[in-house]
């Protein structure tokens, strides 16, 4: 089963791995992105994720379809969480099942790379000192 989702709920890796199950699959690769306690050396207490919801869902579905065409994979899960997330929280998951591990690793890697390039989601860092700033805002 494929899953493409933008969500405000907790991401549960077990549920995602269940979606991948397939008796013909020998390899599952799961990537989890989590909120870090620092960015470029500055302490952080978490992130706020802004999203363009309908476009983001359309984009992750499109990325999934590309991966299915380009790699020998069985099932694909791409889920991105939005809202305010404290350090340690899972913000994004990309998971793939395939007969063999070459395809599973390649597709999972391409999946997260494309999510980060093309899905309309923006991060605002909540710095440990109480201030906050959008990523890439040079003003």
């Amino acid at each position, binding site marked *: 089963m494929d899953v493409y989702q933008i969500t405000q709920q907790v991401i549960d890796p077990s549920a995602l791995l269940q979606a991948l199950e397939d008796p013909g699959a020998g390899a599952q690769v799961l990537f989890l992105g989590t909120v870090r306690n620092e960015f470029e050396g500055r302490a952080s207490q978490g992130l706020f994720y802004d999203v*363009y919801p309908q476009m983001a869902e359309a984009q992750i579905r499109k990325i999934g379809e590309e991966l299915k065409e380009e790699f020998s994979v069985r099932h694909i899960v791409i889920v991105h969480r939005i809202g305010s997330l404290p350090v340690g929280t899972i913000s994004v998951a990309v998971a793939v099942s395939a007969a063999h591990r070459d395809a599973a690793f390649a597709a999972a890697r391409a999946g997260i790379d494309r999510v980060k390039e093309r899905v*309309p*989601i*923006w*991060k605002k860092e909540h710095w440990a000192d109480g201030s906050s700033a959008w990523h*890439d*805002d040079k003003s």
Partner: protein
Amino acid sequence: MSIMVLFFSFAADRMNARQKLYDLDGTMTVKEFFEKFLVKPLGDPFDAWLFSVNQEWVDGDALLHDGDEVAVVPPVSGG
């Protein structure tokens, strides 16, 4: 013709709006629209932004049509 323009992240902050309706005299490209209406309030030049029309990424020479949903946003930074 009119188009609905959406703003996110610091584009929304700078516009003081998440969305705005614009009335255009006639058809124009995304870049023409940006230069006429947005470069001033957004403060950064055309190359600093990404654009989508009806939820597909486009470049500056995409033509706008009546009823289009346009987003003018910073580079994405999800993950």
